Structures are given as C-alpha cells and as structure tokens.
C-alpha cells in the first residue's frame, strides 16, 4: 500500500487540476459563459466581460465570491452573473453586499452602525469560530442600497482629500478616497450599457429613435429662431442630459468602432455612441443589442439572451479574430484559476514533505515532489497564458513579479529535489510557492493585473532580459534564505537534521547563493544598460536600482565571507537568512518610499507585513546564534 502512495497522490493532484477545466454546471438556461467571453475595451486593452467582472469584484470587495457571512450560499453562481445583474438589473445588484469598507471612521461617516455590521451566525459552532478569529466577527461588505443615503457626504469628504498629495494623506483620507473610488467604479458599471433608473431601457431607446429626426429638426429650428414644438425640444434636452451623464461615467467601451474604422482601439462607451446619434440620427446596433440583452435578462427570456450573445460574437469575431481568441482563452484562464489551484497544491506539497522527515521518508518525499511538480506545471501554464494574452515577457508589473519570483524559486527547488531527494526542496518550494501566490493575490486587488505598459517601460527586449534575469535573482536569493531557515528551525527544534543533511543543505545554500549572485549581478548591470539606453545614464542611484545593488552586494558579502573563512555552516545560514530581508526590501520596501522613476506601486498595508517579515527573519537569525550544543539535532548527534 505504502508503495503506491506517491502514485495515488499524483493522480489525486492531477484530478484536482483537471477539474479546473471542467465546464461549470449550467444552473440556468442563460449562456453566461458565452456572455463572459464578449470582448470590451477597458483601460486600453480588449478583454472579456468575465475579466471585467472578476477584476471589478476584486477591486470592490477583495474577493470574487458574492455572499454574506451568515449565508454560505452565494448570491450568484459566477462573477459574470453578478456583472449581468449590475449591467442589466441594477435594482437587484444594489442589494448585494459588494462594497468593502474596513475603516470604522468611514463606516461611521456613512452611518453604518454596530447593528449593521453584526453577524448573526446560525450555529453555536460558527459563533465559537468567530470568537476564535477563524470566521469574520463583523461585516465589512455593504450593499449600494445600504450606503446610498450618505453617499453625498462620502463624496464631499473625498473631494476634501483629493487635493492632498497621496503620500501626505491621513489614513482616514486614504480610506475615504478608496471607498469613494469603489462606489464610482460600481456606478460606472451600472451606467455602462443603460440608465439604471430606466424601467425598460430598450423601450426608451426605441422611442428615442422614433423621436430623433423630428427632435433634431425642432432643436435646429429653435437655434434658428424658427417656429418649433417646445415640448419636443424639452424631451430631447432631457434625453441629452441623461446620455451625457452616461458618457461622463463611461468606463466600459462596449461599442466596437464602425466597420470602416481600422483602429483596433477606437471602441466607444455607450454614452458617447448615443450622443453621436444626435448627428447621425441612427442608434448604434451594439447599443441596441446590449439593451435587448438587458430586457431578456430581466424578463428571464433565455432564448433571446443567448441569441443576442451569439450575435455579438458573430459580429465581432471576423473583425477581431485575434482579440476574440485571446478573449476566449482569457475567460477560460479566469475560470480555471491556475494560481489558486497551485496554492492548494503547494500547501499539500509542503505538509507531505515536512511529515516525510518524521515518517515514511521515501514515499512521502516522492509524493510531495510530485505535487510540487504539478503545481509548477500549473503555474507555468498560467504564466504562459498571461504572456500570450498580453503579448509580453513574463514580468510586467509587481503582480507578475510575484508570480515569477515564486515560479523561479520553485523551479530551482524541483531541480534541488531531483538532485538531493531529501524533501528539503519540496518544503522550501511549497513554502515559497504558496507565499508568493498569496502576495500575488493581494496585489491583484488593485485591479486588472494585465495593465498597459507605460511608454518608458515599453520595451519587450529589456523586459525579457533585465527584468526576467533580475527577478530570477530575487527568486534565488529568497530560496537560499528559505533553505537556511529550514536549517535553523530543523536543527534547533527537531532531531532530524543529521550531519549528512546539514552538509547537503550547506551545499544547496552555497550553490544557490552563487546562482543568485550571477543573476542579480547580470540583471542589475543589464538594468543599467537599459537606463543608459533610455534615460542617458547608466546608474542614477534610484531607490529600485539601489535595491537591486543591495542584493548583489549582499550575495557578494556571503560569498567572500565564506571564501575568507569568516563564516562556517551556521554563519552562512544566518547571512543567507538576512538575504531574505535585503530582497524583501528591494522588492517591496523601495516601492514604499514613493520617490524615483521605478516606484510603480505604492502600498500601505503591505508596509506592516514587510516590517513583520523583517522582524521574523531577524528573530531567526538571533535563534541561529544559540550555542550549537543547545541545538536538538546536534546535542545528540554522533561526533561523525
């Protein structure tokens, strides 16, 4: 039985990954998957509505599920169903708790009291879990309906905070602006294809179409001072005001350019397309189609809904085959969620590998290695999918750097595990893989992770060389640090670190530090050459450049200290752990300074996590200074 354990685990892991590709069971007759693949242009990129739904939910409320803590059943089956409600049936969407507010001050501002945030769990078990902190103790997501009344005050406070420089804002001001931006995003979605207050927008548009020729005549007549029907002019003006409001909030560009327009980025928001109707006297067909979708969705007419979704596909497909292909793949990629699946696999690989040090070393280590490889394959697939969709090298922003740092480190771990077969690679790989994907998840809360590149960074050659090489340098430095952590924790607290394993770990750390030196040095110098090419100086002492330099210097310190005999095994480990601190600083700390050309992501909450990480690493370095005869592994180890 024991012998088949690795195979069993491998099959379970494969099944878990394969289940990601199984199409979700259709609970409705509506073709929601097809609707999710309809492309729109947002933030400079053509993407499927499915991506819009997911990134909007992440930005609004920090997760993709729409539910309340009391009721485990979600309101909608998929993010795109929520989006359909927001676009077509806002009265219903307004009741979903999807706007996240953490700050008690902002909650008080919006008149949300303790009675509102209290969670009435239905079972004693859940209540106990909440007290222990495993379940949320109070609500942090609220519906638009709940907040509606006090929104003018929120807007006023945000306007007061707007002129203040971002870095100088108080926590309250930052939170007010964050919540205001969430509400604005929600309003933008609500007004993307129809006026939310219209009982039947399709009918409104049809009437508008009929009244348009006479209406424009009347307006022109009024301008000339000729006789005209005052009521018609008034109705037209009201309509124009409504459309102008839609145009102002225009965010989703759902209307593809006219057939003769070859600019693939000339998509328009609904409001703009409708305003143009005053000149052309004709309503755009896409605008009408979305209005038809809306009516079908509200009335439960699945057949019409599906027919129009198919029509939208058919009309866009031949004009933008490439964009449609990418849109399709992106929707599938979203649904498969390779990075979330990998996270689970990394945790299991880590657990199995740790247990292998105590029991069934061969079988469990092998099972862990299989899971690690599966997770690596899944993340590789995910990264390749992103690269193909974006048409870019793997690292383009902080989010993708987190994916890639994890990927590089896990790849090295798989190689180490292949060579040493002592489960250390699996433990380190599981830990780093999970941690980096968790970081990536939190970075994704900022919005679409496939954003457009600023002109100054828009160079695939340098993104593919400098950025990739330096990111592998980060991976390797982190890996050396995590291996060293394993050495200290295992040696000090358990009896499992025998002389052979300690030796193997030392060789691993040394080898990985050499590798890290190579990549971080070459990557840093390549970055200098890029800077020389685009800004006219090889080195500008910019915080991000300095951060990269610190990693190079620290790796060089480790190597020279080792060569000079200044440190032995334990000293090497302590130095390697400090490498974690240096790399974390260079990766995130430099972005928090808010100066320099490179600071592409300023984060607040992350600052406290960075401090916590640094403190934890320094604590382990302190632990490593405990005299060797107090280490559990070495106290009892034979002299050999």
């Amino acid at each position: 039985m024991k012998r088949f354990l690795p195979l069993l685990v491998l099959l379970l892991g494969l099944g878990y990954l394969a289940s990601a590709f199984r199409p979700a069971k259709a609970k409705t007759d509506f073709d929601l998957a097809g609707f999710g693949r309809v492309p729109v242009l947002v933030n400079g990129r053509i993407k499927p509505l499915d991506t819009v739904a997911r990134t909007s939910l992440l930005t609004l409320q920090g997760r993709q599920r729409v539910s309340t803590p009391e009721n485990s059943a979600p309101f909608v089956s998929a993010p795109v169903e929520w989006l359909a409600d927001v676009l077509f049936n806002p009265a219903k969407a307004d009741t979903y708790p999807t706007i996240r507010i953490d700050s008690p001050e902002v909650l008080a501002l919006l008149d949300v009291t303790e009675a509102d945030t209290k969670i009435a769990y239905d079972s004693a078990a859940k209540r106990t879990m909440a007290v222990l902190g495993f379940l949320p103790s109070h609500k942090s997501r609220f519906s638009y309906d709940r907040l509606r009344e006090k929104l003018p005050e929120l807007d006023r406070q945000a306007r007061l905070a707007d002129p203040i420089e971002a870095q100088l804002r108080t926590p309250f001001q930052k939170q007010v602006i964050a919540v205001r931006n969430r509400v604005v995003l929600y309003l933008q979605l609500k007004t993307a294809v129809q006026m939310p207050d219209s009982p039947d927008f399709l009918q409104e548009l049809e009437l508008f179409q009929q009244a348009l020729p006479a209406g424009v005549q009347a307006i022109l007549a009024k301008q000339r001072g000729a006789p005209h029907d005052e009521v018609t002019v008034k109705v037209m003006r009201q309509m124009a005001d409504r459309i102008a409001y839609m145009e102002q909030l225009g965010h989703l560009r759902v209307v593809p350019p006219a057939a003769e327009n070859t600019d693939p980025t000339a998509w328009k928001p609904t409001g703009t397309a409708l305003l143009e109707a005053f000149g052309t006297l004709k309503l755009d067909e896409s605008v009408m189609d979305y209005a038809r979708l809306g009516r079908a969705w509200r009335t439960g007419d699945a057949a019409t809904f599906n027919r129009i979704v198919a029509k939208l596909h058919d009309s866009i497909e031949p004009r933008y085959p490439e964009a449609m292909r990418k849109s399709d793949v992106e929707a599938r990629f979203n649904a498969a969620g390779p990075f979330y699946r990998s996270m689970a696999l990394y945790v299991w690989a880590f657990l199995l590998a740790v247990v292998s040090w105590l029991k069934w070393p061969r079988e469990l280590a092998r099972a862990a290695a299989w899971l690690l490889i599966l997770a690596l394959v899944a993340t590789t697939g995910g990264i390749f999918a992103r690269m193909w969709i974006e048409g870019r090298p793997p690292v383009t922003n902080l989010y993708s750097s987190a994916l890639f740092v994890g990927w590089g480190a896990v790849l090295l771990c798989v190689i180490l595990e292949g060579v040493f077969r002592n489960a250390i690679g699996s433990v380190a790989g599981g830990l780093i893989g999970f941690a980096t994907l968790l970081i990536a998840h939190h970075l994704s809360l900022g919005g679409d992770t496939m954003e457009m590149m600023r002109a100054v960074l828009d160079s695939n050659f340098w993104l593919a060389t400098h950025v990739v090489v330096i990111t592998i340098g980060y991976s390797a430095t982190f890996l050396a640090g995590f291996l060293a952590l394993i050495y200290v924790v295992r040696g000090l607290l358990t009896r499992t670190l025998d002389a052979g394993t300690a030796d193997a770990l030392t060789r691993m750390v040394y080898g990985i530090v050499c590798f890290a030196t190579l990549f971080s040095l070459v990557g840093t110098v390549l970055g200098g050459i890029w800077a020389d090419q685009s800004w006219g100086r090889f080195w500008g002492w910019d915080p991000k450049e300095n951060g990269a330099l610190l990693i190079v210097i620290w790796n060089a310190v480790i190597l020279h200290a080792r060569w000079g005999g200044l440190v032995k095994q334990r000293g090497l480990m302590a130095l390697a752990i400090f490498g974690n601190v240096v790399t974390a600083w260079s990766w995130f700390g430099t972005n928090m300074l808010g100066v320099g050309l490179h600071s592409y992501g300023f984060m607040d909450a992350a600052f406290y996590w960075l401090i916590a990480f640094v403190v934890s690493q320094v604590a382990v370095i302190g632990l490593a200074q405990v005299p060797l005869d107090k280490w559990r592994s070495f106290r009892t180890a034979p002299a050999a």
Partner: protein
Amino acid sequence: MSPVVRQFRDFFVSLKLTVVLLSLSLLLVFVATLDQVNLGIWAVQEKYFRSFFVLWTIPGAPIALPVFPGGYLIGGLLLINLVAAHVYRFAFTWKKLGIQLAHAGVIALLVGELVTGLLQEDSSMRLEVGETKKYVESFREHELAILDRTDPQFDEVVAIPEALLADERSIQHAKLPFQVNVKAWLPNATLQMGDPSGRADLPRANQGIGPRVQVIPLPITYKSDEINLPAAFVEIVTTEGVAGTWVVSPIIGMPQSFQYQGRTWEFAIRLRRQYLPFSLTLLNVTHEVYPGTEIPKNFASRVRVKSDDGQTDREVLIFMNNPLRHGGQTFYQYQMNAAGRMSVFQVVSNPGWILPYVACVMMGLGLTWQFVGSLVGFIRRRAAADKAEPAGRRAGAEIS
C-alpha cells in the same frame, strides 16, 4: 620585504577587507536610499556617493563631522583591494578564469562609474515645433551672459559661469570694454515688485528694473523637480567711472541693456549654455495614450539634424528607448507637452559610456564560466558517489 610592507600588503589583499568594505557599502546605499525622501536624488548623490566622507552637521553648530565613509572612499578602497588581490594572487588556471574575469569586470564598472562621475555632462534642449537651436542648456547651473547687440546680424556673447559669480569678485574680460563687479550673489532668490529700500542687507540696484523690485533670498532647494533661481547685483565700471548697478535674475523675462561707446550691451542670467557644431529643428511631436486611460503609450519627436560643415542634414525620430546619438552627444526624449507643441530632450555626453557594457560582458561571461564549472564538477562528483554506493541506500541514509 619588511614586516611593515608585508602588513600593508596583507591588509590590502585580504578578503576580510573586502567583506568589511562591501558591508559598509551596503549600509551606505541603504541609508542614502532612505535619505532621498528628505534630500532628493541629486543632493543624496553629492552627500553620500560623490564624497570621501558623509558629513553630519551638528544641529545648531556650523561644524560638520565625518560620520561614515563616503562613496569615493569605499569605492576607492574596494578598487585598491581588488587590484591588489588580483596582482598578488594572480595565477592563470582555467578554473580561476571565471572569477578573474568577473572581478576584472567589477574593476571596469568601478572605473566607469568614476569616469562618469567626473566627465559626464547632462544638459537639456527645449524646442517648440518649428524652432531651431544649436546649443544645449544645463539643468541647474546658470551663467551671466553679456551680449553685444550692436550688429543686427549676430551677437557677441561673453558668458560668466555661476562658480565665478559666486565668488563675488571683479571680472575683467578681454572682449568687454568695462569691468564687471559682482556686488552680491544669491544662489536662490525670488523677485517681487516693490521698493527695494526695505532690504538694507542687500546692495542697491539703480539701473534697469533695479529701483522697482525687491530681491528676496530663498533657501537652496534640493527637490528634484525644482531648480534654484539665482540673483546677482552687478556693477559696471567703465574707464569713465561707475555706470551703475543692475539686478539680474532668470525671473526677469526681458534682458536689460545699456549703451556704452556707441554699442548696445545686454545682461541676462540664464541656464548655462554649451554650443554645438550642429543644430536641431523640431518638426513634429506625438503623444499617444492608451484609449480610456491616462497611461502614456508613446512620446515621439521628429527632428532635423543639420551640421555646420554641411555633411549632415537628415530627419530623425526620437522616442522612448530610442535616443539620437550624434557628435558625442546623446539626445533622449525627456518631457513633452503635446498640446503646447513642445518637447524637451535630455542631452548627455559621457566619454565613459562604453565601460559598463564591457564590464557587463566580462562579469556575465566570468560568472557563467565559474558557475557552470562548479555545477559540472558537482554533478561529476555526485555521479562518482552514485557509482560507489547505490542511490537508494544513500538517499535513505540522508533522510533518516
């Protein structure tokens, strides 16, 4: 070899020194990065990297204490350490080739940074569409330009650099028929309309705009997005006596002039200019953003380059990551105001620009050589061990 010399040698070739110096540089770079929030990037470079010691001024006392070795000291010692260790331990073996090459690359990099620090000149050229210029301007340094405007065909210019003005001395130039006395120099100041008699600490300007403006000294700014705007009180003394005192500042839009010996002279403080043997004409600017965003997609400027010797006359497109290299100068797209039809280039001349490229190749090759060599050695040893002992048994022994 005497013991003292040997001690010296052992000190300078030791790896301990390397580790200490590297650790010091780590601290220096880290603290300098943090200090950028207060000082800005330019002042930090001067204080931490282009200095032998980092000075700390005791609050309330005009004494600056050296508290930490600066970039020149650490970099210089590292260079000595590296070269000394190389010379002392040098022995050619294939195995060590990688390390030697990598360290030679580090030497090239350090030397390159020194050359850049000493010889690189940064300036800018700001052009509106249709405009032609054949000079570049400094980013921060000013000069006092005295122009002979008598001949409508061309101007004769005498430019006095900021460093000379700051000495507040008398200046006599062969091309000027008068003496220029700098009575006061303010490194950063602003001007406002009003009676200057309120400020007794400054000289009185009795010519040009002088009697109508107040000069208000300002503290020197270190912010990267601001520049210091200097002001000076300049007295002109001819053979016939004092002609008067003028106040000059880049804030004064139009030049002030005076007549002497039938010639017209103008003064102005302006950004220091360097004339080029060719001219640039801005033909067109484009600034694209991604639709529905403010994210810039591309900045591009189309320019015509025309050299004085008539050998060059061509159009060039300068855009992000694609500068124009011509006549020892490199023009980079720096800022743009597409609505105002205006473009600014950063202009750099750096004779040492090739060194980092050489260093990169040497270090990359060296480290790769070393790394691959170690890896191959490791795999061979591993294979040999596998032969000596079946893999299963060894693995089991290592894990249990």
